[in-house]
């Protein structure tokens, strides 16, 4: 018992794992099958047979006919396309089916009978055709399906294979036959090119009807066509047309072969094949723009790819080769490999480096198309409107040919009328651009308008991107031509912004007296031209911005905010610049002074600073004008904004003396000394008529007798109290003060000094007196 029991136990122990293993195998197979079926259209009730189960596909034929025993030719017949055949009362009009008693399958493992063969002797239940395919098998085979299903199949064939509602299993059944004909038969017998073409056409027709219903069918049909296509071609793969786009997430064989062949021959990977590569590569995630705007994306990719890589990337052939095979849908057939597999064409599509090289381009293209794609995505937008075009990248824009665009461009050219720029009414612009509110363009609308203008080679000021406002119906703008050789600007540089603020301040000053003098305008333009920090395109734009600023009635509002970020040095520069503009016409009017005061306040200067600045400007002008004094070295000559040196320079720089300035000051001082010397120097008494009078004993140096008498009197006394002197004066009939005035004047004239101080007592300078009496 024990031994029996133990045997039983042993048996049980052996059986249970066997069951377990069997069960596991069963579920494994099932799950693989169901996995491979998950590609199929889920609405398809009938489960498609699994086509690719590599683990179990052990005895498949590899096209090697050595162990293949062919059926006898009289046992079946391939009905040629165009021929018709009658089976069980159904007339099949266009052939393309195998009919007969027996047809050995291409693969002997699963079936001995090929599933596609319509066995003429089998029962067909014509009165109850199973169109739904309820009784269809996993791997349908005409031989094995029930009579009702055969009836449905034959009925479908007889009906021209067009019923869209038919179970996909019947379509596959038919497809099996074509597969066999195109792969198996062509290998062993002659199949005419004409027939191949007809068969491929047929697959295309089926694809059109059933492709959308079954992903699985679509995949097989496409793959078969491609395989056949590749197997019959005798030209280079890269010379072929790329296949129509399929959104599979793998790089197709043709693409691989084309790229590989290019690499093998040392040729650059050309753009159109690289495009196929990127859109199919599983690791290349394509965003909406690339999928929505396929054609634009393709064009853009090719342009960018060529811009970056010229004719294309050149890659060294790698060791992994492309192998192209076709695993048949039919269970009666195995896998077929392309003859070219032996050519060792490298599979460059698997190279990570290649992918990484083109990834940025793809992203760039998608980004550039993003706006356009979003715009297209909105239902209300129509593809061909001008606004839509404004979102296109510039490079693509130039490739479109559109009547409306041409007309718009003509209109713009008309506005500018042969010149470089023109002042246009905003109303006119708004009318031409479809906007929601006829009073003004919204920010978005304006942006698209600006972008459209830019594509047509025009710019506009004010431009919202360049610190300008939006476009309002009343008002004017400056429309100007862009120069195609200059940089395309999309946003202001920091220099541009800063300079624009300067300009806005300066224009406010220039306009203060309601007259923009030529000098002021010239200086503004010069200051733009002479700015080394702006490129030609920026200068062009800024000059037009200036035209607009001068024309418009833009207020000083908002300027305060713009200078908040200015440091003191910038503010000083700005302040000096404004004063220079105000004085550019040679005169700073009260209105300009008023405006300057206002703007200085915005710069948070003390009120008095404006007067000091004006004064300094005026004296600087004077200074620099003096040719004798202007010995400043050339490098200190004002550049850029032509702003006078800030007076605060010394504070920043500490103690410093400018030797050139000293030299010029000394020169100037010499001049002034000479001037003054002419005034103060001692005069040389050379008047002859006065010398004549000297001959008279009673008179001295042309003084009259009375005054001379006083001089003689001075000889005796060097200190005269006032009262005494008055007496002396009256003795000689002279007024005391008047007499002294006359005598001193004479003394100055002759000896450049007074004879006496008019004080009490009066002190006589004896030296002068001696001179007098010589």
């Amino acid at each position, binding site marked *: 018992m024990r031994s029996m029991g133990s045997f039983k136990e042993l048996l049980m122990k052996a059986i249970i794992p066997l069951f377990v293993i069997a069960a596991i195998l069963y579920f494994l197979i099932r799950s693989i099958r169901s996995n491979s079926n998950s590609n199929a259209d889920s609405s398809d009730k009938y489960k498609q047979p699994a086509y690719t189960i590599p683990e179990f596909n052990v005895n498949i034929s590899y096209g090697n006919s050595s162990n293949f025993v062919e059926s006898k030719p009289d046992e079946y017949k391939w009905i040629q396309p165009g021929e018709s055949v009658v089976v069980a009362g159904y007339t099949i009009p266009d052939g393309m089916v195998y009919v007969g008693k027996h047809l050995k399958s291409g693969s002997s493992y699963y079936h001995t009978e090929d599933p596609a063969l319509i066995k003429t002797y089998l029962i067909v239940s014509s009165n109850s055709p199973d169109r739904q395919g309820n009784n269809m098998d996993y791997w349908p085979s005409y031989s094995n399906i029930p009579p009702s299903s055969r009836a449905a199949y034959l009925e479908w064939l007889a009906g021209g294979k067009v019923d869209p509602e038919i179970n996909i299993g019947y379509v596959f059944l038919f497809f099996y036959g074509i597969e066999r004909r195109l792969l198996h038969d062509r290998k062993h017998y002659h199949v005419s090119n004409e027939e191949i073409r007809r068969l491929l056409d047929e697959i295309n027709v089926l694809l059109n009807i059933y492709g959308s219903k079954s992903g699985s069918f679509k995949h097989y049909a496409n793959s078969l066509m491609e395989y056949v296509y590749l197997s019959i071609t005798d030209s280079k793969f890269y010379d072929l047309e790329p296949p129509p786009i399929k959104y599979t997430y793998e790089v197709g064989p043709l693409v691989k072969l084309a790229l590989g062949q290019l690499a093998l021959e040392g040729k650059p990977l050309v753009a159109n094949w690289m495009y196929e590569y990127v859109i199919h590569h599983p690791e290349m995630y394509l965003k909406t723009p690339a999928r929505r705007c396929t054609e634009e994306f393709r064009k853009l990719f090719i342009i960018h790819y060529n811009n970056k890589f010229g004719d294309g990337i050149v890659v060294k052939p790698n060791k992994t080769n492309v192998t192209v095979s076709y695993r048949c849908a039919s269970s009666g057939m195995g896998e077929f490999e392309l003859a070219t597999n032996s050519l060792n064409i490298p599979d460059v599509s698997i190279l990570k480096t290649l992918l990484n090289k083109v990834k940025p381009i793809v992203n760039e293209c998608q980004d550039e198309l993003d706006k356009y794609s979003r715009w297209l995505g909105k239902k209300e937008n129509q593809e061909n409107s001008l606004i839509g075009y404004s979102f296109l990248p510039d490079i693509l824009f130039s490739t479109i040919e559109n009547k409306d665009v041409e007309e718009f461009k003509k209109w713009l050219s008309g506005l500018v009328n042969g010149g470089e720029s023109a002042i246009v009414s905003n109303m006119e612009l708004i009318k031409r651009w479809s906007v929601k509110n006829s009073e003004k363009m919204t920010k978005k609308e304006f942006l698209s308008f600006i972008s459209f203008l830019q594509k047509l080679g025009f710019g506009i000021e004010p431009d919202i991107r360049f610190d300008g406002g939006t476009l309002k119906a009343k008002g004017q703008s400056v429309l100007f031509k862009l120069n195609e050789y200059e940089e395309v600007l999309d946003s202001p540089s920091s220099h541009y912004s800063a300079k624009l603020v300067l300009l806005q301040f300066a224009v406010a000053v220039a306009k203060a007296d309601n007259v923009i003098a030529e000098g002021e305008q010239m200086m503004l333009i010069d200051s733009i031209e002479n700015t080394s920090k702006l490129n030609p395109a920026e200068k062009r734009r800024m000059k037009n911005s200036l035209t607009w600023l001068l024309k418009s009635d833009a207020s000083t509002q908002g300027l305060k905010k713009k200078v908040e970020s200015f440091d003191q040095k910038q503010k000083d520069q700005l302040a000096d610049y404004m004063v220079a503009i105000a004085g550019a016409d040679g005169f700073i009017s009260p209105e300009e002074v008023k405006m300057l005061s206002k703007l200085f306040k915005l710069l948070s200067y003390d009120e008095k600073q404006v007067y000091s600045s004006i004064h300094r400007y005026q004296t600087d002008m004077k200074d620099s004008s003096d040719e004798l004094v202007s010995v400043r070295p050339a490098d200190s000559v004002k550049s850029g904004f032509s702003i006078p040196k800030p007076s605060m320079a010394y504070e920043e720089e500490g103690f410093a003396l400018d030797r050139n300035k000293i030299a010029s000051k000394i020169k*100037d001082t010499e001049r002034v000394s000479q001037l003054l010397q002419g005034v103060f120097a001692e005069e040389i008494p050379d008047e002859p008529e006065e010398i004549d009078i000297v001959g008279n004993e009673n008179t001295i140096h042309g003084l009259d007798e009375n005054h001379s008498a006083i001089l003689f009197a001075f000889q005796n006394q060097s200190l005269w109290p006032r009262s005494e002197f008055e007496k002396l004066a009256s003795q000689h009939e002279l007024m005391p*003060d008047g007499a002294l005035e006359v005598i001193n004047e004479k003394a100055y004239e002759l000896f450049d000094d007074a004879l006496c101080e008019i004080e009490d007592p009066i002190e006589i300078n004896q030296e002068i007196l001696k001179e007098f009496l010589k």
Partner: protein
Amino acid sequence: MTKTQKIRSKDRDAIIQSLRAGVVPRKGLHHIQVGRSNEVSALLKDISRVTDEGSFIRFIIGEYGSGKTFFLNLIRSVAMEQKCVTVHADLSPDRRLHATGGQARLLYAELMRNLSTRTKPDGGALPGVVERFISEVLKKSKEKNLSPDTVIREKLEHLTEMVGGYDFAKVIEAYWKGYDTGDEALKSDAIRWLRGEFSTKTDAKRALDVRMIIDDANFYNMLKLMARFVRLAGFSGLVVCLDELVNLYKLSNTQARKSNYEEILHMLNDSLQGTAYGLGILLGGTPEFLYDTRRGLYSYEALQSRLAENTFAVNGLVDFTGPIIRLENLSPEDLYVLLTKLRLVFASGDSNAYLIPDEGLRAYMEHCHKQIGEAYFRTPRNTIVSFINLLSVLEQNPSANWQNLLGSVLVDKDSNPDFEGLENNDIDSDGTSLSPAEMPTSSNPDDDLKSFKL
């Protein structure tokens, strides 16, 4: 610069003394004038125009510390040298061009007190001018055997056609009478009248038998009259220096301000139209006095348009014939050159007798810069005072060396009185305490000397 030119010891001492006291010298300014040759040359032409019976008006605009007062003094001494009579005064709340409360008369009085000639350059020359006139009269009366009264009337006849001219002539006659009869009171009354010191007509009538007095209403007319008179007295013209015009700007009453500007307009028109004879007017003010569009000259439309610059004088062309002369702010380089000038003055013009080398000048400036920052050259008064003191010490102690002394020099910062309250400007309302030739005052002038230690 003629370095060999000898500087007279009198000039030298005058310059050193004034500068040491922190005031602008009245003599020998030409020895220490730095640069500004264009401005000086323009003014020289102006003055020669005055001596040719012409006229001029100039606004001397400069910031505090730019040397306006110095410049005005220089021009004044040039004018005196050219035999002009000069009068000068600072405007203040009590002294204006136009007023109804006697302030214009006070300004006139101040001007007359400061009336100077070459022989009496510090003011008080009015009696001398009058007597010189009368001396001429007496001479002529002797020659032609006419009574002095007749000659006086004859000479002053065309003055009588002008406003106040008749009474003016009468007052001159009164002076002569006072002299002739030994009536000192009469002489003194006549001078008082001429100085605008009579405040009521009744007093004037009683004292001099004249119907009018010099008052607010005829301020400018009397100046014009005086200009004619000094020519008759043998001088070549009258130059009027009015400084601190910022005081008009400071008037808070709009009407009062406007009336004063109207007076300036009047002067300007006369000058441009040539209706003033032998009269030159210099007006000193700060930039805000000129430019402020609410309270400055620019606020007065008619004046502003006449002050407009020559529109063709742009891009480096300068027109010095316009009425505005702008004085550039002082720079360190200006100061440096001034120091070389002062050194030369100390050496009496002998470059071999320098007390301090160039290197010392630099070092001195750097020292000042360290002490008071950029004020050392912007408002250089104290810098100059200390420098003069330094040179004095070096002169008296030939063994001392400048390097050792330099470290002990202390320099004070100067402050700008223009921006202090109005009260400061009242100090000389009695007309005696301050001479207008003085530079803007600092609170304690003695500080300047105290700051220098050995």
